């Protein structure tokens, strides 16, 4: 059985189920308690599980990441929240130099099973220090997993899988997705990490998109379908470790690929995806160059129109797709 939930509700339900099932799971972060989290995601959990397991912290992102690492190292299963992904910059040392590497450095004798949830993305008028999409920083770090769900059902199943996973997982939510709705199965279920999903089948062009851009790509695909362009939309869901095979297979089929993400283009995940495709057997099937559509290489502007232009919109995806299907190698 499933019913409609928002993305935020789906995330909350996953946390609730994990906490009910496993006493080692606890929640830590700024204003996650009575306030219910800056975006209301943890609303009601404090009332249900109490201050021992739903822990408000002072504004101290370094120690939030540190507490998650230390507690995970010694038998607990923390879910840490960093209020905006921008503030993860203050957690970097514990995440990158400690949590990610501890198992390896200690010869495989320990594990660090925690999830760090954080909302990313622009579109709320919150300007340059509250709109970052920094996922690719973490993709670059061996030992960390990076998950970026695009639908409520994925958010729930992937979060539960992330909590079960014996490694540190950076779980990136998108602020503009929180209110989107979708069918979500009831009860406990997991969606395996590192499992790319084809969200829409098509023959003319592959769009590989992440997070909010999956939703926009699917909308663009509807428009394009009316023009006779059949787009295949592929969502990696887990950025690291990446399940490349379905992406490669799709590109072999369509011969054209457009990669779409919100983060700045230079150094973004799209570069990695393009390289993976170029290095694969799909190279021989490409009828046109691999194209990327991504955030402009600027900080996120406050002005509404500039902010809108900074991030790929549905019409930008439609345009890029139209051009790409006409391109030849």
């Amino acid at each position, binding site marked *: 059985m499933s019913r409609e939930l928002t993305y935020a509700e789906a995330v909350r339900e996953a946390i609730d189920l994990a906490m009910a099932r496993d006493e080692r799971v606890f929640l830590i972060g700024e204003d996650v308690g009575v306030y219910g989290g800056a975006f209301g995601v943890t609303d009601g959990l404090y009332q249900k599980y109490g201050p021992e397991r739903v822990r408000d912290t002072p*504004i101290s992102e370094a120690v939030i990441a540190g507490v998650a690492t230390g507690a995970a190292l010694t038998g607990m299963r923390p879910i840490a929240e960093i209020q905006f992904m921008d503030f993860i910059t*203050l957690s970097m040392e514990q995440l990158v130099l400690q949590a990610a590497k501890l198992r390896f450095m200690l010869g495989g004798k320990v594990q660090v099973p925690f999830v760090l949830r954080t909302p990313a993305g622009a579109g709320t008028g919150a300007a340059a220090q*509250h709109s970052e999409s920094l996922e690719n920083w973490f993709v670059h770090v061996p030992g960390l997993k990076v998950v970026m769900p695009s639908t409520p059902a994925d958010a729930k199943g992937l979060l539960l899988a992330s909590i079960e996973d014996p490694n540190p997982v950076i779980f990136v939510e998108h602020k503009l997705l929180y209110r989107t709705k979708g069918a979500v199965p009831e009860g406990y279920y997991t969606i395996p990490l590192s499992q790319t999903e084809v969200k829409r089948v098509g023959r003319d062009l592959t769009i590989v998109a992440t997070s909010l851009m999956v939703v926009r790509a699917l909308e663009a695909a509807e428009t394009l379908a009316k023009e006779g362009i059949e787009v295949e939309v592929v969502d990696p869901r887990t950025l690291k470790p990446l399940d490349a095979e379905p992406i490669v297979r799709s590109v072999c089929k369509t011969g054209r690929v457009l990669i779409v993400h919100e983060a700045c283009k230079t150094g973004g995940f799209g570069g990695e995806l393009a390289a993976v495709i170029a290095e694969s057997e799909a190279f021989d099937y490409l009828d046109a160059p691999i194209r990327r559509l991504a955030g402009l290489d600027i900080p996120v*502007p*406050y002005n509404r129109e*500039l902010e809108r232009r900074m991030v790929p919109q549905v019409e930008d995806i439609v345009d890029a797709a139209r051009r790409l299907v006409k391109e030849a190698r």
Partner: protein
Amino acid sequence: MNQSFADLSPERLRALLHQMMLIRAFEEAAEQLYLQGLIHGTMHLSVGQEASAVGACAALRPTDYILSTHRGHGHCIAKGARVDLMMAEFFGKETGYCRGRGGSMHMADVDTGNLGANGIVAGGVPMAAGVGLSIRMQQQDRVVLVFFGDGATNEGAFHESLNLAAIWNLPVIYFCENNQYAMSMAIARASKVEKLSDRACAYGIPGVTVDGNDLLAVYCATKEAVERARSGGGPTLIEAQTYRWKGHSKSDKQRYRTKEEVKAWQERDPIARLAQKMLEASLLTEADLQHLQARVDEEIAAAVAFAKASPEPDPATIFEGVYA
């Protein structure tokens, strides 16, 4: 000279009262415009905290620097910014202080020494040590005052900055606006230290706690710290005890505090307190007060009109300003 007004002349006092009233009017107008959908994003209002912004900046010279916070409209106005250019920034217009790129959380007026609000809690605190060092190395007759909230004192960077400024004897005034909460986190839950100024002893520098809703108390404490910094005596930590009347931002249900608590603090309104004190000392008449209010209302109306009439940034300039 009336002893209870320190070295402030009646004209100066009226100017400071005007500034406090202007801050409140600016923020109340901004809130209304937000509710009308004319301004997007979020905003952090400092209504109820005007005395700490104005009292602190009153002790500075125009050439001195400040670093501000996400709750920074008051600091900006107190340091001498123009409300029309601030309002235009709020509207995201090209004529705004940051050409519409920054908005409320990044409001800055470099010409009046305001190096900027900050979206990051404690974001300005480490930079303050750098500004202090730069002043020292260039042998300038300046100081820097950095504003931050109670919540900022639990970031690691806060401690690193105070320690460094202390050992290098830098001309920095660390000004903590303790408004009792960091979002939903009451300071009593976030710190075991009863007075945040007590933290100064960990760095071997002076610390003082003042009534942040008393303009004169704030002014006097800051003046002393500024004189110390200017004469080579190093940094000071000031804690101004105050309260924010409004929610943390535009999405706060305020479940973490009671209406009674808010009401009790509203009775300690910093603006009404100064006005009352000046009325009693015959430094102000009721007519003066009405006149001041009318002037403030006009200034805000003009600012809103200016902002509305201003042009949007040209999208062709979107890449400007990323690199020098």
